[in-house]
């Protein structure tokens, strides 16, 4: 019996280890190639770690390429999207959580619908709509599109956070002399701060990763976001693996930072995004 248990325990740990290795290896490889000097890249192609590591690729990418601009553009777009989405969806999420009203059912249905249909459908009409307004090739246009795409999911997410806060608290505040909106601002919002941070993180990550609409809507370098920049770099200079991967590692950094921020809320986020919508 104990022997069997020991074997099972060892098997279990090995399986977990295999998963961790599978999850990390591609990222490790990205890092490894990005610090391999070009001269060693082909001779030491499949060694686990180069005999000499260097940051030359990072140096090049940061000083001699447009990646800093792309990075900045992506940061501006993702951060603005995250802030706007969080504000707007916390209002709507609050209404969904706290009010009983006719039409709520229809709002939920509408939000669900937007989660079901293929967004690629919108690529062509979106371009046609935005271009006469001068919103193609502009960060503002991207922000508007990303805000709309992320708002339904964020609304469900914020609703789930508000649902976790007892209704009695607002009732108490309203009896204490607050209007509903004051109660919302002074009592409910401060208590939702962790949820707000999680929503910011989810939306930032989503906007940071978006590729197809950015490809379609942006053509000049000035408004290029990181994914688009990296992809065009890949198709133009597809031999400079070290530099590409250094840029890739840079793109990974903000996403990983936000991952740490939202780790605790993954379940809530995924159920709001997946089960509800």
């Amino acid at each position, binding site marked *: 019996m104990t022997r069997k248990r020991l074997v099972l325990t060892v098997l279990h740990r090995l399986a977990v280890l295999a998963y961790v290795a599978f999850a990390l290896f591609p990222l490790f490889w990205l890092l490894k190639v990005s610090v391999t000097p070009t001269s060693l890249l082909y001779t030491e192609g499949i060694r686990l770690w180069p005999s000499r590591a260097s940051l030359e690729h990072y140096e090049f990418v940061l000083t001699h390429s447009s990646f800093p601009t792309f990075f900045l553009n992506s940061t501006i777009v993702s951060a603005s999207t995250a802030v706007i989405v969080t504000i707007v969806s916390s209002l709507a999420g609050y209404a969904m959580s706290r009010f009983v009203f006719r039409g709520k059912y229809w709002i939920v249905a509408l939000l669900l619908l937007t989660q079901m249909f293929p967004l690629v459908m919108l690529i062509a009409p979106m371009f046609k709509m935005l271009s006469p307004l001068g919103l193609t090739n502009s960060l503002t246009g991207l922000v508007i599109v990303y805000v709309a795409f992320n708002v339904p999911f964020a609304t469900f997410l914020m609703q789930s956070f508000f649902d976790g806060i007892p209704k009695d608290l607002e009732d108490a505040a*309203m009896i204490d002399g607050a209007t509903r909106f004051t109660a919302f601002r002074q009592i409910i919002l401060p208590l939702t701060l962790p949820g707000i941070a999680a929503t910011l993180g989810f939306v930032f990550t989503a906007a940071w990763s978006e590729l197809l609409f950015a490809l379609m809507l942006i053509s000049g370098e000035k408004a290029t976001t990181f994914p688009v920049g990296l992809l065009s770099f890949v198709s133009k200079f597809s031999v400079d693996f070290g530099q590409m991967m250094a840029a890739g590692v840079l793109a990974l950094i903000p996403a990983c930072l936000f991952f740490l921020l939202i780790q605790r809320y993954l379940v809530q986020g995924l159920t709001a995004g997946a089960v509800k919508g």
Partner: protein
Amino acid sequence: MASITIEAITKTFGAVPVLHDIDLSIGDGEFVVLVGPSGCGKSTLLRMIAGLEDITAGEIRIDDRRINEVAPKDRDIAMVFQSYALYPHMTVADNMSYSLKLRKTAREKIAEAVGAAAGKLGLDPLLARRPKALSGGQRQRVAMGRAIVRHPKAFLFDEPLSNLDARLREQMRAEIKRLHKSIGATSVYVTHDQIEAMTLADRIVAMHGGIIQQVGNPLDLYDRPANLFVAGFIGSPAMNFVEGHCRAGVIETTDGSKVAIPEGIHLTEGQAVTIGIRPEHVRIVAGSEAGSYTARVDLVEPTGFGTIVHVRLLGQDLKIYTLERGVAVVGQPLHIALDSTRLHLFDRETTNRIG
């Protein structure tokens, strides 16, 4: 301080009626307890007074001012919630002063009011703490403190003690009563615990199914319950009910025993009645005497101070509450006398009290 008048209040949630035509007037400084089983609409009524629920029909007035359309914040009422509803991100002092800050009270006045309330409730050492760092009893006190800081027109309590353990509940009960004596504020208190209702109330309002069953002072409700519901709800252990019919000037119970009709009560022949007998009013007598019954002891439950004895009598499991120890032994016969002046009679059709 203020009086509260509730006139012909009706409440429906969607199509579900919850309160039917409630009338009640609460005097200035009075302590009124709403009591009734779960789901009877006590909280709903209280929340309508507070302004947290719309009023479907009828009118509520505070000091003769109609408040149906007044927002909760403008009603000048304080409420203590069952969950306490303390603001988790604020310290005890901030919790207590929040309402005063919203009213733009001067800072010195706030400090003074919070200090006074904290002193009254023994909260001084806790003022800088967050609710998370308090025990259940302390939280309850803070909730009370938050209410009294404001000197509101009236206090509303929604089962404020039901999350405390029995000993603490007893202690806080006494404290609330003392507080009310010293502040003298109009209070409406909701509970489903009849002991709380009896001990605290100037007047009890017994509710059932969204309808007021009886209003009166606690001893009235105990001595002269208006109907079967109140009779069964007030008093512990609960009243015994025995069903019977009026036959030839006596009441014949289902097992064929006979109970004399109390003096001054007229029943029509064949009328279906329910006899109510409080367990503490059943007498155990030494031997068989005129009008006494003999019954076998089923179960004995000592409660410390007294003893609850179950016997099989009048076709019923009849409870007897006695202060004497050792008079009942399981399986042994017991002689029992019913005091006819202490019987309650109810019409089984209308469930109302007779006489």
